[in-house]
């Protein structure tokens, strides 16, 4: 069944054919163009969740800022974390072009109404986790985000282009950490293997449920927000990552992983999506800690916002008096 970009409630809207024609012709939709309410709502949900993910994504890494093994690694990690904060800001701004406000989005996050990527609810236990997060978590995010550079909503696509350029450093710094560990002592190699073992399956879940079980995919595809299916993206990630793990001489924890000559792709074992559902619904290893840290950071920052507002008011008053 093909899904139309025009939902039934807008079938007779005079601007609907123009919207459908733009989607068909790959013309980007811009903020002041007419769009179906459901298209707007879907984008607000997806873009704000994406922003929240970037925001919360800073948290698993922060513990390692003071524990990084060298000044070089510390500076790199600091730059990466600053990028994640920046990415959240690009995405919040892009979402605001749809008429939602920053305060509404943050409130939805802080009260648990909005979701963020489940992957950030896993702990970063060792330094090898920092390498694995950059290599695999950022690697998986890049695959999804490269697709989103072609999404039909202009501000989202532009934010994604910027983010993709910056993420490539994240992935490479992660892989470089893994190379150092895998070429280091036996203990360092074991640490790298242990991290891969823990992160592999949760990372595969980042691409979402199987195509048949993904409820919103058909409509998002009709709107050209989504350009490739969850399973296509996941396969692309596995095919890209297996040779990288081989280079590191690390074992991917999947007994069913093997090259399928006929398909021209790697086959891999079944994913336990009940774990994804559990973590998304709030019951992962670090959900409470992450959300708690986010809310605390917002509350602790209140005085900075107040001071900045007061400073601006004082300067305005002085300028008026002068």
């Amino acid at each position, binding site marked *: 069944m093909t899904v139309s970009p025009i939902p039934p409630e807008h079938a007779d809207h005079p601007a609907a054919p123009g919207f459908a024609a733009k989607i068909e012709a790959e013309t980007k939709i811009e903020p002041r163009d007419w769009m179906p309410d459901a298209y707007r709502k879907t984008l607000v949900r997806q873009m704000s969740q994406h922003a929240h993910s970037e925001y919360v994504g800073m948290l698993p890494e922060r513990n390692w800022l003071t524990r990084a093994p060298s000044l070089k690694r510390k500076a790199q990690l600091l730059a990466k974390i600053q990028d994640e904060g920046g990415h959240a800001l690009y995405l919040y701004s892009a979402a605001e072009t749809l008429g939602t406000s920053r305060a509404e989005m943050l409130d939805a996050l802080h009260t648990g109404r909005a979701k963020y990527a489940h992957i950030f609810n896993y702990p970063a236990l060792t330094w090898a986790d920092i390498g694995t997060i950059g290599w695999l978590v950022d690697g998986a995010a890049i695959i999804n985000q490269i697709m989103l550079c072609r999404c039909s909503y202009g501000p989202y696509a532009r934010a994604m282009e910027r983010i993709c350029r910056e993420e490539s450093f994240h992935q490479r710094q992660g892989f470089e950490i893994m190379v150092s560990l895998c070429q280091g002592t036996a203990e360092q190699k074991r640490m790298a293997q242990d991290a891969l073992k823990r992160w592999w399956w949760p990372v595969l879940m980042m691409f979402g449920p199987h195509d048949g079980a993904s409820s919103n995919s058909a409509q998002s595809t009709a709107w050209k927000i989504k350009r490739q299916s969850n399973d296509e993206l996941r396969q692309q990630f596995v095919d890209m990552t297996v040779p990288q793990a081989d280079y590191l001489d690390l074992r991917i924890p999947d007994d069913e992983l093997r090259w399928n000559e006929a398909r021209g792709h790697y086959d891999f074992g079944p994913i336990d999506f009940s774990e994804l559902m559990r973590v998304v619904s709030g019951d992962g290893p670090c959900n409470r800690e992450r959300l708690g840290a986010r809310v605390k950071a917002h509350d602790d920052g209140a005085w900075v916002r107040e001071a900045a507002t007061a*400073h601006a008011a004082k300067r305005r008053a002085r300028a008026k008096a002068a």
Partner: protein
Amino acid sequence: MSEVQSDDWPLWEVFVRARQGLSHKHAGSLHAPDAEMALQNARDVYTRRREGESLWVVRSTDIIASDPDDKGSLFEPAESKIYRHPTFYKVPDDVECL
């Protein structure tokens, strides 16, 4: 607790000049309480990788934009005046420098 949200701050559009000789180009937007802090934030948010050497910040509410619905009446006339383009004119093949 008194709640100051970043929403209470105006929205600013950020324009970045990549290098001398190019014009400033829209990069995105941000919230800030005044122009000075908007510039400082713009530097952190939009120029972490030598994207530019000059920044403009403009209050979003100060931008007057054309209405997307007027696109036809505003820009169609340019579409139909093909004689404004050099390719409209036929010139002999053996005449140079035209």
